[in-house]
């Protein structure tokens, strides 16, 4: 059985936090450039150019792309033949987030409880951790800092089968219209279909932080991704909501088998700073 040191996990998470917050992923950067070339609105083109300049400055100065460096959302894929030693997995991840956000001058945006004192925890912990067990003896960590401007506009609707694809379209369109300029378009829209309530939401989050070059492997769902993107880009919202044809860069759909009576739809909105970084230990 392969051993993985807890300290190595903390180190990797700290590095991922800084990398994700300060370096716009290349796939997102290229997508901004491609959309700028097609954008008919002069104001829209100007904003897309500014977002690329912003990414250049952030990378050069090791400064966050956006001041809202989010809650740290971490997807962990733990190989079933791996054994973590020298500490526990959750604590090691929280420690990595603490180091990344404190030492990396990232903003601490986490409050200790949601309703009463709302006191800032001061180190951006705890992280939001999703663990799944996979074959093999490796450990895959995918960190996505998630800001509130986009997260707050996410939606979950429990449709029924008769609502069908038209119902799905309407939920996605309504979510994007409600988000408007607030979620910093151009967006990356993650759609989760099926499962139960929380599985739909997790699918949507996974979809929102997928690489932009990726497509759903099922051609029917890949076609749905294209169709929803086309629909969203006909809203006119445009970059920053000031008008144009680039309201979203991509739509990603993830799905899970569901109940005979259910069609859950979750929409997780990501802003143009669609940050994600991955490490394999």
């Amino acid at each position: 059985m392969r051993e993985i040191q807890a300290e190595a996990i903390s180190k990797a998470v700290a590095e991922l936090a800084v990398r994700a917050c300060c370096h716009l992923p290349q796939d997102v950067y290229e997508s901004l450039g491609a959309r700028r070339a097609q954008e008919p609105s002069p104001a829209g083109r100007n904003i897309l150019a500014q977002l690329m300049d912003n990414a250049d400055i952030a990378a050069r100065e090791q400064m966050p792309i956006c001041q809202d460096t989010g809650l740290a959302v971490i997807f962990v894929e733990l190989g079933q033949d791996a054994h973590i030693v020298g500490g526990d997995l959750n604590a090691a991840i929280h420690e990595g987030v603490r180091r990344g956000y404190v030492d990396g001058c990232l903003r601490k945006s986490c409050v200790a409880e949601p309703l009463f004192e709302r006191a800032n925890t001061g180190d951006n912990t705890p992280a939001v951790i999703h663990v799944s067990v996979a074959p093999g003896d490796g450990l895959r960590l995918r960190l996505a800092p998630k800001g509130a401007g986009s997260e707050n506009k996410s939606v979950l609707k429990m449709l029924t089968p008769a609502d069908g694809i038209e119902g799905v379209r309407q939920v996605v369109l309504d979510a994007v219209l409600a988000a408007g300029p607030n979620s910093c378009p151009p967006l990356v829209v993650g759609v989760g279909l099926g499962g139960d309530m929380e599985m739909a939401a997790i699918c949507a989050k996974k979809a929102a932080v997928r690489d932009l070059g990726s497509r759903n492997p099922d051609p029917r769902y890949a076609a749905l991704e294209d169709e929803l993107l086309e629909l969203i880009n006909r809203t006119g919202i445009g970059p920053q909501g000031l008008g144009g044809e680039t309201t979203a860069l991509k739509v990603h759909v993830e799905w899970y088998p569901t109940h005979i009576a259910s069609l859950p739809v979750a929409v997780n909105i990501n802003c143009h700073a669609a940050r994600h970084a991955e490490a394999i230990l």
Partner: protein
Amino acid sequence: MSEQPMRISAPFDDATARALKAGDHVLISGTILAARDAAHKRMVEALDRGEELPVDLRGAVVYYVGPSPAKPGQAIGAAGPTTAGRMDAYTPRLLDQGLKGMIGKGYRTPEVVDAMKKHGVPYLAAVGGAGALISGCIKKYTVLAYADLGPEAVAAMEVEDFPAIVAIDAEGNDYYEQGQAPYRRLGETAHGR
């Protein structure tokens, strides 16, 4: 409306506030005030108790921002705008105190727009998520009140050529609506926001 940026200075006087038209591109120099959710809540609670505010809002331009920490040698970290709508519940009270301009991102409620028209106050949009770019326009950051709120403290920011677009002017003209309309192609299903 002018796409050639106009240079203006902050704080705003009445004439400056009313001269800005929806869609105007501006570069702001001078001093603006940083405040967001928790600071707005505290200021309105202070007013409810009949107390003085810790800062004079007359003529002030408030920027909805919660910057990331400065590294050594920097005035400030990334400092882009946050969503203005979360301040809507508190905004009319602050406009009553003489606030003359607001910078943020996103839609405002009709109640806020009515209060803006009453007081002759424009709302400007900065580019959301361009925190590193905007950081370079902020030359000095000085916490004035509520230091315990960390990134949410009330602070004075000295800015040079801070870029913004007039989103809603003092007459209530809305550039989000004007800018989006020509590109909206939803056909029968069009229902705007």
